[in-house]
C-alpha cells in the first residue's frame, strides 16, 4: 500500500472549513449559535483529545477547566476592565496551570483512580464557584466578556471561534503526526517499549497537559462570551460527558473522528428537540455501544484502507544489505559490562552475582533453563530492574539504575519476549517510535510545523523505510500494526530498535513463534548487524540458532553463570547439557 497523499488527508478538514465559511450565507442565526458552540467545544476537545485519545488518560472532568477559563476571563473583564483578549490569554494560562495540576496524578495513578481524581476535581470547582461569592458572584453569577469589534456581533464572534477551532485542529493534527503524537500513543499502548525507545513520560505529559489545559481555558473564555452570563449551573457534569464521549465516539488516536464526534454530539439534541432532556442519556448509551461494539469509533469506520484484505502467506525476507545505509560506520563503542549484579524479587534470587561483557560487533548468546535469570539480566541492562548490588558499565561510565528511558541515549536498544506494539498505528509509525531519541525539535516546533521539525521528520521517515526494508517489511509500511502476523511483529520490533542507531541490541527470544525459514533469515540478519558493529545480546531457546550464529555463549543457571565460551565448547559441556535436560 502507498501512503495517502497530503491533500487526500486534508480534504475532510477543508470540506468542513468550507461548510463553516458558507454557514453565515444561510442567514440562520439559530444554526450560527449552534455552530459557534460546536467550535468552542472543539477548541477544548481538540486539546483534550491529546490527553484522552492519544495518551489514553481517562480525564473525565475537563468541564472544570472550562469553568476556570470562563470565570478567569469573565471576572477579569468585569472587575478590572481589561479587554477580553488579554483576559482570554489569562484564562488560557490559568487553564494550563490547573491542567497540569489535575493531570500530574496520571503519572502515578492507574486509569480508574485518575478518572476518579478528575471527577472529584470537577465537583470541587463548581462548589468553589458557588461558595466564593466575592469573586464569582456565587449562584447569581457574573456577566460574560465580549470580544472587541469586529468580533462583537454574533457572526463576528462565530468567525473568531471558527478561526480558533481551525487553529486548534491544525496544531493538534501536527502534533499527532509528529514524534510527540507517536510517543503519546506508544506510552498508551506499549509503555515499556516507549521507555526503552527513550521516551520519558513525565516531561511529555506535563507539556500535553499544559497545552490541553490552555485550550480548555481559552474555550472557557469563549464559552462565557457565548453565554453572556455565567453561573455554576452552566458547568454541569453533562458537559464533561459530552467532551469525553465525543472523543471516544470519534475514535482514539484520530483528529477527524473526535471532530466529527463533537459536531455530532453538539447538533444531535438540536435536530430532535424532544431529545434535549435525554441527551446525556443518549450520549451514555452511545458510549456503551461504542465501547462494546466498536472500540475504534468513527475513525475506524472511516478507515477503508485497512479493511482491504492483505495477501496471505506473506514471507518476511530481510535485506541486510540496507543496513549499511541505516547504520553508518562509526567509532566502535566501548564494551558494555554487567558487574557482579545481584537481584532478588521478594525472597527469590533472580540473579546472584552475575558478570558478563558485551562487545561491539559480537553476537553473544544468553541461554539457560526457565527462571535462570535471562530476561532479568536484560532488564537490568535496559534499566527496567534495579539490582540490589552491582552495576552496569559502558566503557568508563556507570549507567544509572532504574531509568529505562535514559538507556536509548547510551546506545542501548532492545526487543521484548512478547512484542510490544501500538496495534492501531501503522507499521511505519511503530518503527518511527524508535527514532524519537535522535530528534531535537520541540513540542511547539511540531505544533507549528517549523522547518527543523519538517527536516527531522523527513529524515526519520527515510530511515524508518530503510529499517523496514532491512528486516523485510517495507511492503507493509502503511498497514495497521495489529493486522500483522506474529512473526512479522518480531522483525518489526528489531526495526524499531534499529531506528535509535544502537551500539548494543538486546534481543529477548526473537525466534519464538517463527517458522524454520524465518529463523534462518533472522540469524542472517543478526550476523549482518554484528558486522555493522552492533553488539547483540541474544536470549533464545532455539539452541540450534544460538550455536549457529553466536560468537560467544553464556549459560545461566539459578541466576549464576554456569558456563561461558565458544558455542562448540558449550555444546560439548556436560553440565550445560544436564542443566538443560534437568537431570
Amino acid at each position, binding site marked *: 500500500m502507498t501512503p495517502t497523499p497530503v491533500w487526500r488527508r486534508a480534504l475532510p478538514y477543508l470540506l468542513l472549513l468550507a461548510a463553516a465559511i458558507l454557514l453565515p450565507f444561510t442567514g440562520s442565526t439559530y444554526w450560527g449559535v449552534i455552530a459557534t458552540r460546536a467550535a468552542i467545544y472543539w477548541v477544548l476537545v481538540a486539546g483534550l483529545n491529546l490527553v484522552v485519545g492519544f495518551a489514553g488518560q481517562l480525564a473525565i472532568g475537563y468541564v472544570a477547566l472550562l469553568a476556570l477559563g470562563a470565570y478567569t476571563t469573565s471576572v477579569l473583564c468585569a472587575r478590572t476592565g481589561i479587554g477580553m483578549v488579554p483576559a482570554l490569554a489569562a484564562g488560557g494560562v490559568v487553564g494550563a496551570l490547573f491542567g497540569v495540576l489535575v493531570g500530574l496524578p496520571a503519572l502515578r495513578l492507574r486509569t480508574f483512580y485518575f478518572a476518579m*481524581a478528575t471527577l472529584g476535581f470537577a465537583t470541587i470547582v463548581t462548589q468553589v464557584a458557588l461558595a466564593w461569592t466575592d469573586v464569582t458572584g456565587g449562584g447569581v453569577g457574573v456577566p460574560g466578556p465580549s470580544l472587541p469589534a469586529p468580533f462583537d456581533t454574533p457572526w463576528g464572534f462565530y468567525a473568531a471561534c471558527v478561526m480558533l477551532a481551525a487553529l486548534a485542529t491544525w496544531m493538534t493534527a501536527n502534533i499527532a503526526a509528529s514524534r510527540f503524537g507517536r510517543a503519546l500513543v506508544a506510552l498508551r499502548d506499549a509503555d515499556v517499549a516507549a521507555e526503552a525507545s527513550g521516551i520519558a513520560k513525565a516531561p511529555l505529559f506535563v507539556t500535553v497537559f499544559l497545552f490541553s489545559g490552555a485550550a480548555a481555558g481559552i474555550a472557557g473564555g469563549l464559552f462565557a462570551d457565548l453565554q453572556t452570563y455565567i453561573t455554576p449551573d452552566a458547568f454541569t457534569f453533562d458537559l464533561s*460527558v459530552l467532551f469525553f464521549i465525543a472523543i471516544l465516539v470519534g475514535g482514539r488516536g484520530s483528529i477527524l473522528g473526535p471532530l466529527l464526534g463533537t459536531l455530532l454530539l453538539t447538533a444531535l439534541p438540536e435536530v430532535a428537540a424532544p431529545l434535549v432532556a435525554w441527551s446525556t442519556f443518549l450520549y451514555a448509551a452511545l458510549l456503551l455501544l461504542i465501547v462494546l461494539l466498536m472500540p475504534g469509533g468513527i475513525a475506524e469506520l472511516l478507515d477503508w484502507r485497512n479493511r482491504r484484505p492483505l495477501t496471505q502467506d506473506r514471507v518476511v525476507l530481510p535485506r541486510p544489505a540496507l543496513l549499511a545505509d541505516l547504520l553508518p560506520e562509526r567509532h566502535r563503542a566501548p564494551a558494555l559490562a554487567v558487574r557482579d549484579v545481584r537481584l532478588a524479587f521478594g525472597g527469590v534470587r533472580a540473579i546472584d552475582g552475575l558478570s558478563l561483557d558485551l562487545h561491539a560487533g559480537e553476537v553473544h548468546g544468553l541461554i539457560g533453563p526457565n527462571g535462570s535469570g535471562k530476561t532479568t539480566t536484560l532488564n537490568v541492562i535496559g534499566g527496567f530492574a534495579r539490582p540490589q548490588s552491582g552495576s552496569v558499565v559502558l566503557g568508563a561510565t556507570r549507567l544509572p539504575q532504574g531509568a529505562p528511558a535514559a538507556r536509548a541515549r547510551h546506545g542501548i536498544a532492545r526487543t521484548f519476549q512478547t512484542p510490544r506494539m501500538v496495534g492501531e498505528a501503522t507499521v511505519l509509525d511503530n518503527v518511527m517510535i524508535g527514532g524519537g531519541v535522535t530528534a531535537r525539535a520541540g513540542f511547539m516546533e511540531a505544533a507549528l510545523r517549523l522547518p527543523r521539525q519538517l527536516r527531522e521528520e523527513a529524515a526519520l521517515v527515510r530511515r524508518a523505510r530503510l529499517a523496514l526494508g532491512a528486516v523485510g517489511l517495507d511492503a507493509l509500511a502503511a498497514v495497521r500494526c495489529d493486522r500483522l502476523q506474529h512473526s512479522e511483529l518480531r522483525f518489526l520490533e528489531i526495526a524499531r530498535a534499529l531506528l535509535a542507531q544502537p551500539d548494543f541490541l538486546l534481543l529477548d527470544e526473537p525466534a519464538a513463534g517463527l517458522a524454520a525459514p524465518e529463523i534462518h533469515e533472522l540469524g542472517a540478519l543478526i550476523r549482518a548487524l554484528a558486522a555493522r558493529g552492533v553488539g547483540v545480546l541474544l536470549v533464545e531457546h532455539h539452541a540450534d540458532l544460538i550455536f549457529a550464529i553466536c560468537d560467544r555463549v553464556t549459560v545461566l543457571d539459578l541466576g549464576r553463570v554456569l558456563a561461558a565460551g565458544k558455542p562448540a565448547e558449550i555444546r560439548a559441556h556436560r553440565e550445560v547439557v544436564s542443566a538443560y535436560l534437568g537431570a
Partner: protein
Amino acid sequence: MLEAVIVSGVAIGAVYALIGITYNVMYAASRVMSFTSGQLGMLGGVFGAWFILRLGLPVLPGAVLTLSACALVGLATEIVAVRPVLASLEKHLYVLSTLAFALLIQQFVAIEWSTEPQPFPRLLAFGDALIDQKFWLPLAACAAVIVALEIIYRRTLVGRAFLAIAEDGFAARALGLPERRLRMASYALAGVIGGLAGFAGGELMLAFFANGPLLSFYGFVPVALGGLGNNRGAIIGGLLLGLFQQAASFLVGGLFVSVATFVVFIAVLLAAPQGLFGAAAGRRV
C-alpha cells in the same frame, strides 16, 4: 456540638463504608472497579422512597423490593458492562463501560424520578434527636453487612468460592468452579449492599439522583486509601472520612470540606498509589 459531629460523621461514614464494600465485592469477583457502586447507593434511596412513599407499601416489603431491585441492577452491571469487556482483549475498557452504565442509570432516574431531592420515609416508629434512626440506621446496616459477609465467606461453600476467585481466578477455573455464575452472584450481592447503603442512609441523603456520582467518589476514597479489596480498610476509611467531613464542615465551613477531602485523597494516593494497606505492583517486563 461534639456529639452531633460524631454522630452525623459516623452515620455518613457508614454509608461511605458500605459503598466502599460494594466496590470491593465487585472488584474481588472481577478485578473491575465499577462506577455503578455509588449509583446503587443512590438507587437504594430512590427505590425506597418510590416503593414506600409513592406506592404506599409497608416498610418491610418496601425494603425487600428495594434490595431486590438493586440486586438486579448489580446483575445488569455484570451482564451489560463487565462481562463483554472481560471477554475482550482490552480489559481496561471497563472504566468506560461502567461509567457509561452509571450515567445511564443516573440520567434515567433524573428524568423519570426527579431532578430535585425527594423526601425519604421514616422507617421505624421510634428514636429522635441524637439517637435518631437516620443516624444509627446506616451504622446498623454497616454492622449487619459485616456480619453477613463474615458468615457467607467463612461458613458457606459459595462464600469460600468467592474468596477463591478473588485470590486466584485462574486456579479457581482450573478446579472447575463456575466462575461466571459466581461473578454474577457477587454483583447481585454488591447490588444489595450498595442498595442497603442508600436505603439505610435514605433520610440522611434523601432520594436524589445526584447522590450517585457523589457516593461513587466518596465511597471510592476509603477504598483507594485502604487498598482495593480490603473491607477492613474500607470501613475504617469510610468512618474516618465521614468524621473528617463533619468536623471540617463544623470548624471551617462546608466549602472547604470537599476541597480538603480531595486534596487529602490526591496527596495520599500520590504518596502511596496502592493505598495505605495495599500491595505493590508486579513487574512490567
